[in-house]
């Protein structure tokens, strides 16, 4: 499909030639880049690349995912009574999705340093190069847009007629261009202030935000939309809404379908003119400042090195001497602690699962367990948390993070650096892996238990302490089991896989823990029993850890 969009964009050959662009080279560059895109997985989707050609490749999957998202956005049309508000919300969400995808997925194109070595040393003039970059982003943006808005377009055309449908297409383009401008501005600012590495870190953080926003929207969106104040919202009577671009864009449609009022005309005019001004700005900014900055970023000479102050003792190096007993164990602890904190790929994969817990917490607290429609007072909600059962669920939910951490722990972009494990005299891999286990527990499980405990004591009282301790012990046992059954390689020693492995094993272990968790839930009121279980569980953990350290780990491949 992208190739088709490209053909359309290259149709006005005369126009491009008048602008001083070498159209043959432009076509060549774009065709190669689009082929590359089709073979690269999309970051925010986590899709695997496909070897199939054309439509059946990545592009199709991407189109499908976007169409599903677009269909979800249609909820506004059905759930919000006022169509003006509904369309404003629709365009707002659409722009958010586009912006986040542009930031997450297109960042590689926007700041692609390979161009400096592959294209710029060849006889390609600056203008052709600049236009190729704009069009490349344009093609991908269109690809995303078509999938995203198709359900909305069909709905609009059917319910409001062909004319309004055509206006809708115009609105979508307007929103797309506006979003592109905003994202571009974002990059311009960020490149100015941040080093290449920090910028990449920020982009990966935004990808996490994207996931959290989607999860939250899925859970809270429908509930929020049913609220009275949303249903009673009217754009005409709410001046603070007038400053939002999605409202301007939605106004165009109201103008086409309904009455002529001064407010509609002014807002619609803003909607029409803003993208034009934006387009002019985008072209100007792209052609000048942006490329220079990217070029500067690509050369290593002028790059800043971010020095971490040596005086700053980091958490990992403080905890390592306390929690580990030998240099080898400390090596395992430190490598996991440091790389999980810095590897972008690891963070991109793990952090969204970390985000589930706060989202679930808020969800359960405000909307209860499965009784979302029943309005309840704040006291009622507190009461439910007070008996501790809510916390039990959250304690065990934290285990998802642990499982995910293990899943991605063996993978790393620089997996070839793992030659050191084979060259070094690692006498007892079990000791090394014990360090790995301790780092995973300390970093990805205990903080959640501690956080929930600190939150839980004021709400549910001190009775929750033994529950937290028991959950922590069961989680620790689980961590040992998962490591033994699923870790088949040293940390960061395998190439990055797009899909998680050992799913069935993990599921079985999780099932076992689920049973224990349920037993915990049943006996929650028998405080003494919980304390005894606590002691037993920690005892089992200690024995298991001892055995774990002696494990030969024949299966470890470096």
């Amino acid at each position, binding site marked *: 499909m992208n190739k088709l969009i490209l053909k359309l964009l290259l149709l006005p050959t005369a126009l491009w030639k008048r602008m001083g662009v070498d159209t043959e080279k432009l076509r060549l560059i774009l065709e190669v880049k689009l082929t590359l895109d089709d073979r690269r997985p999309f970051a925010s989707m986590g899709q695997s690349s496909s070897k199939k050609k054309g439509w059946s490749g990545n592009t199709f999957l991407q189109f499908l995912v976007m169409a599903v998202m677009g269909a979800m956005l249609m909820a506004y049309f059905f759930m919000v009574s006022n169509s003006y508000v509904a369309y404003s919300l629709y365009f707002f969400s659409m722009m958010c999705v586009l912006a986040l995808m542009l930031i997450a997925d297109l960042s590689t194109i926007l700041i692609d340093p390979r161009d400096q070595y592959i294209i710029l040393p060849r006889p390609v003039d600056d203008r052709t190069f600049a236009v190729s970059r704009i069009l490349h982003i344009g093609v991908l943006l269109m690809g995303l847009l078509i999938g995203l808005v198709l359900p909305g377009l069909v709905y609009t055309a059917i319910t409001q007629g062909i004319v309004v449908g055509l206006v809708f297409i115009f609105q979508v383009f307007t929103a797309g261009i506006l979003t592109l401008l905003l994202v571009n501005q974002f990059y311009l600012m960020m490149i100015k202030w941040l080093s290449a590495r920090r910028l990449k870190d920020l982009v990966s953080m935004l990808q996490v935000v994207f996931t959290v926003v989607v999860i939250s929207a899925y859970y809270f969106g429908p509930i929020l939309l049913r609220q009275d104040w949303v249903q009673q919202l009217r754009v005409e009577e709410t001046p603070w809404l007038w400053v939002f671009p999605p409202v301007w864009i939605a106004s165009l449609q109201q103008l086409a379908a309904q009455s002529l009022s001064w407010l509609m005309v002014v807002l619609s005019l803003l909607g029409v003119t803003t993208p034009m001004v934006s387009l002019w700005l985008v072209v100007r900014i792209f052609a000048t400042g942006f490329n220079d900055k990217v070029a500067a970023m690509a050369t290593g000479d002028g790059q800043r*090195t971010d020095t*971490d102050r040596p005086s700053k003792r980091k958490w990992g190096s403080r905890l390592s001497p306390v929690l580990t007993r030998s*240099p*080898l164990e400390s090596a395992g602890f430190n490598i996991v602690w*440091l790389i999980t904190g810095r590897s972008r790929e690891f963070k991109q994969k793990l952090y969204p699962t970390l985000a589930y817990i706060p989202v679930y917490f808020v969800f359960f607290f405000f909307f209860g367990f499965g009784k979302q429609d029943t309005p309840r007072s704040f006291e009622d909600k507190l009461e439910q948390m007070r008996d501790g059962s809510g916390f039990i669920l959250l304690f065990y939910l934290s285990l998802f993070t642990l499982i995910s951490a293990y899943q991605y722990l063996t993978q*790393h972009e620089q997996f070839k650096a793992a030659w050191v494990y084979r060259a070094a005299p690692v006498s007892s891999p079990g000791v090394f892996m014990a360090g790995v286990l301790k780092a995973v527990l300390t970093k990805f499980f205990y903080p959640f238990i501690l956080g929930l405990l600190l939150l839980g004591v004021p709400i549910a009282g001190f009775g929750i302490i033994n529950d937290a301790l028991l959950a922590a012990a069961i989680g620790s046992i689980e961590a040992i089991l998962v490591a033994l059954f699923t870790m088949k390689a040293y940390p960061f020693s395998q190439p990055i896989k797009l899909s998680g492995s050992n799913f069935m094993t993990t599921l079985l272990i999780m099932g076992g823990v689920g049973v224990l968790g349920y037993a915990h839930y049943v006996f929650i009121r028998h405080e003494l029993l919980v304390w005894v279980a606590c002691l037993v569980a920690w005892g089992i953990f200690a024995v298991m850890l001892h055995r774990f350290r002696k494990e030969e780990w024949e299966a470890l491949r470096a």
Partner: protein
Amino acid sequence: MNEQAQPIISISRLEKWYDSKQILKGIDLDIYPGQIIGYIGPNGAGKSTTVKILCGLISDFRGDVTVAGIDIRQDTLAVKAKIGYVPENAELYDVLTPMEYLDFMGKLYSMDEETTRRRAGLLLHGFGLGEHRDSRMDTFSKGMRQKVLLISGIIHNPTVIVLDEPLSGLDANAVIMVKELIALLAKEGKTIFYCSHMMDVVEKISDRILLINEGAIVADGTFESLKNEHGETLERVFARLTGRTDSNLDASHILSALD
């Protein structure tokens, strides 16, 4: 050379097969403490395989290999502890700082943290990376990374140092420094096993050159002795013994393709 002493590395009848293909065809070799061995040979001659066997990375070979009197098959870990290995184009986890990386390496060799930190600090300073000891290596140039790798190969004070193309990416000053370092390490009694395609460097630093071709050692001696026997430069010796005497032939073929 101290040839009366016990050899530090002893290889006898070393053979290695990959399926039906024989890579090493019975290598016999004694290397003595303090020697700088220049190990050269064309691509695919068996250099890397020899090095990997020597470092304990490949265990299914025929013949005997001992390092410091230890049979490598009997106690691979003890041999690994005595060897400092820097592979060619080795990768490192560049999200770490040099200090963190060297701390990790030191601990894999069971060194205590204090010694590792002290040595790492001094070595980094010596290699001109003192200022960057706490910077992440993802912004480092190839030469800076290579220096960190070299340090990681010697930080545990090994008896034998195996270097595979150690000068790759280093600037002229660093090359001079590494060459001097190699000479000093040899003077300290360390044995250096130096693999490279850079004939001029091998010619200058090695006091014994081993040329491997098609899995067998075809020349073994000082540069002077090889020169007297086979040609004026090491390049000539290499070309003659590995079967390429007329190097202009291939080059002219390439040029004719552009007509």
